[in-house]
């Protein structure tokens, strides 16, 4: 009976301004903070509160659900972005005289509206690169034994708490020689160094490393792939590039679904608290002394041997220049947290692993903007502030 009026209501959609949703998100953040502040109140220490604990459990569950629902409010399908890109491809077909089939997959993948809005420009750039520099003109394609129509795949899929967006073309692929030559000129690699493909491709995202000069002579737009790099850093995303000569290239972007909340593990090192997004933590180890090696020849680097692989150890106090790395070290703290990064695994010694928490992120502004290797501040339920580590930059910085 009640289904009748619902069916006639105009499809049940309400237009809401994104500011209102933003305000709601902020409030939900404050709410979840206040709840955990209350729950972790020092006044409750040592009290035996059986029914209170049960109520807290329920309250926490509800807050978590409200958080999820509020986050969902701002989710839009990737199609919103893809549709605009499709128009651009037709435009490019006209400009370049190439024939392009754009295949879109996973357009219904949900993503934060704020993320989607920021993704258009960098995706446009990747797509333009694929069409302009990746795909060959029809004659060249036929000569290479391909069909005359170039194919670009644009796909989105949710993988865990991340959305993976792939732009794949079946063009000529990246030119290893030219990129390597240019990268050596820019001193990214030594004259005799032969970097792994995945390492080499990453240089095309370096600021000022124009792909137009490198891959082909076709016109560039004056903006390098570093536009993409900057956006991805702001969105806490990662970029992967894969390419095979003559077969094509694939650029994959990994972006968190939502920017507001972050599932983190809280670590303590010395007097500082750090938070690390849960998906980069691969394991927590308690190594014995003989699993640790020191390499004086390589900047006095320490290595952790974990099931046969050697993982470089990055001490946070050395990274942040709080102690001299050549000074005699205290023994490695008992706990090592291993992070997965694009540069390979790194191990971070910590004094204590505290908790797993959903944290509210605050950007680092003003004086705090100079903190390196951090996404922002995380407000913890206890009212404390932890620094959210950007493990990619931690790994990159430690390599120097």
């Amino acid at each position, binding site marked *: 009976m009640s289904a009748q009026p619902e069916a006639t209501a105009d499809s049940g959609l309400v237009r809401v301004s994104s500011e209102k949703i933003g305000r709601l998100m902020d409030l939900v*953040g*404050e709410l979840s*903070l206040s709840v955990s502040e209350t729950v972790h109140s020092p006044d409750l220490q040592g009290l035996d509160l059986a029914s209170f604990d049960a109520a807290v459990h329920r309250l926490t569950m509800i807050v978590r659900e409200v958080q999820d629902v509020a986050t969902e409010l701002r989710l839009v399908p990737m199609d919103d972005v893809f549709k605009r890109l499709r128009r651009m491809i037709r435009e490019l077909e006209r400009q370049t005289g190439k024939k392009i089939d754009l295949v879109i997959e996973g357009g219904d993948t949900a993503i934060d509206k704020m993320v989607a809005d920021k993704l258009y420009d960098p995706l446009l750039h990747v797509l333009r690169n694929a069409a302009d520099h990746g795909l060959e003109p029809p004659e060249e394609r036929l000569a290479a034994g391909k069909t005359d129509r170039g194919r670009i795949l644009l796909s989105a899929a949710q993988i865990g708490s991340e959305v993976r967006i792939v732009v794949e073309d079946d063009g000529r692929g990246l030119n290893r020689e030219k990129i390597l030559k240019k990268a050596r000129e820019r001193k990214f690699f030594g004259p005799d160094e032969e970097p792994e493909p995945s390492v080499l491709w990453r240089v095309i995202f370096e600021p000022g490393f124009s792909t137009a000069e490198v891959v082909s002579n076709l016109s560039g737009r004056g903006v390098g792939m570093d536009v993409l790099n900057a956006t991805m850093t702001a969105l806490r995303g990662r970029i992967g590039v894969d390419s095979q000569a003559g077969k094509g290239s694939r650029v994959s972007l990994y972006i968190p679904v939502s920017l507001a909340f972050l599932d983190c593990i809280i670590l303590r090192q*010395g*007097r*500082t*608290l750090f938070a690390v997004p849960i998906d980069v933590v691969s394991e927590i180890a308690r190594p014995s002394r003989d699993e640790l090696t020191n390499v004086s020849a390589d900047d006095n680097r320490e290595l952790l041997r974990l099931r046969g692989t050697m993982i470089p150890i990055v001490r*946070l*106090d050395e990274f*942040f*220049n*709080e102690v001299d790395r050549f000074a005699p070290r205290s023994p490695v703290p008992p706990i090592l947290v291993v992070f997965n990064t694009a540069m390979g695994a790194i191990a971070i010694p910590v004094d204590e692993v505290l908790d797993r928490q959903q944290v509210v992120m*605050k950007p680092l*502004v*003003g*004086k*705090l903007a*100079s*903190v*390196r290797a951090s996404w922002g*501040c995380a*407000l913890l339920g206890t*009212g*404390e*502030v932890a*620094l959210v580590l950007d493990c990619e930059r931690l790994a990159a910085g430690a390599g120097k």
Partner: protein
Amino acid sequence: MTNAAAEVNEDALNAVTARGDSSFSDADNIDDMYLTFALANEEYGVGIGVVTEIVGMQRIMSVPDMPHYVKGVINLRGKVIPLMDARLRFGMAEREYDDRTVVIVMDVGDALIGLIVDGVSEVLEIPPSQVDRNGQFGKSAKSVISGIGKVGERVSILLDTEVLVSDSDISLPASMT
């Protein structure tokens, strides 16, 4: 002693929170208002326009990659605010925080920053005619001192908050350290 200090603090606080009132509503007037505070036996002042609130000492959480005079951050009702120790900023001797120590929260360049001082004194109105802006203190463009305010027998060293929160080295004339 402590009581008196607390009262002064409260007065200063009231003056700050009351600046929206009619008595201070004149914009020109606010430009001449300074919140004065003590560092050792010197008196300093910051324009009241940048001061958002005055809070007691909070639990400081350390943050890496900061200059030595930034002691860490506090969580003030969900806002993460870095704290700068004014004594360390000016190269003065460090002093343990006590119950008179307060944090002056300022909004400078669109970001909040807290200044740890020995204690706040009061809000003074110092018209431009009583502010000495030349002399040895104005010689470099980067000076943290915007002028010396004189009210009767009292002298307040007025600070340029932009320079104060910047990363530039500030050196006070030897006579003042």
